[in-house]
């Protein structure tokens, strides 16, 4: 009974994580510039990765495996903002300015798809 419940919960997390990754991917394609696309990427490396790993924790055969998976989440949560920040700095350094809608002149980075 408990096993079935854990299995169901695990699948729920995995499916939700996959959906989050899918939405993040759609966001990467739909959003206009480097900076706004970082938000879509953020959806993938926090919510999607987190949900998938929680789903895997519920499937893990022993507690040492579960601990390792949880450590992976912790390290992702530490490193991904640093990487995002480095990306933003690099973009600014390369003179790509955030696209701010119609309020400002369209920056050279507006429809950029190189990121």
């Amino acid at each position, binding site marked *: 009974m408990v096993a079935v419940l854990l299995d169901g919960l695990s699948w729920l997390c995995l499916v939700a994580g996959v959906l989050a990754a899918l939405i993040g991917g759609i966001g990467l394609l*739909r959003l206009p510039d480097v900076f706004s696309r970082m938000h879509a990427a953020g959806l993938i490396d926090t919510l999607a990765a987190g949900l998938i790993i929680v789903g895997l924790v519920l499937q893990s055969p022993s507690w040492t495996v579960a601990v390792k998976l949880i*450590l992976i989440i912790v390290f992702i949560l530490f490193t991904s903002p640093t990487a995002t920040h480095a990306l933003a700095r690099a973009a600014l350094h390369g003179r790509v300015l955030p696209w701010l809608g119609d309020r400002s002149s369209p920056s050279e980075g507006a429809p950029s798809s190189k990121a």
Partner: protein
Amino acid sequence: MTRAVSLGLAMAALWLLLSGYFDKPLLLAMGAVSVVLVVLLSRHMDVVDHEGHPVHLSLKVLAYWPWLLKEIVVSSIDVAKVILAPSLPIAPAVFTVRGRQRTELGRVIFANSITLTPGTVTIALDGEELTVYALTAQAASGWEDSEMNRRVAAIEAAT
């Protein structure tokens, strides 16, 4: 010195958890040797300080993480709605927030928390000022007096 000891303990725990060896004396001894070696090296490199190994924050940070996870989920759903809406209702904005934290470490925690919550990215941290890029006007409002700002300031308050 206490910081070095706690670093050693943390790494020994990590070694045990990652290896899963609890009853193989030879391997345990080798693990202990590597832990000692790494602690000595870190001390030699002078990185075992309040920034490199902020053990004084650990208990309060552990209490902060669940709240941060909840924030990540809530703002993720907001971003997902924006992405899936056919009209793509984004209104990107760049603004500055003054971090209420006393130390640089506290402000870095605040900046990273902002980046971790989807919909907002910290672009720059200069003194007390954080430059934040937000995807929607809603995500851009109210950061100065935000609960996150207050909570991160509280983490480092009593240390």
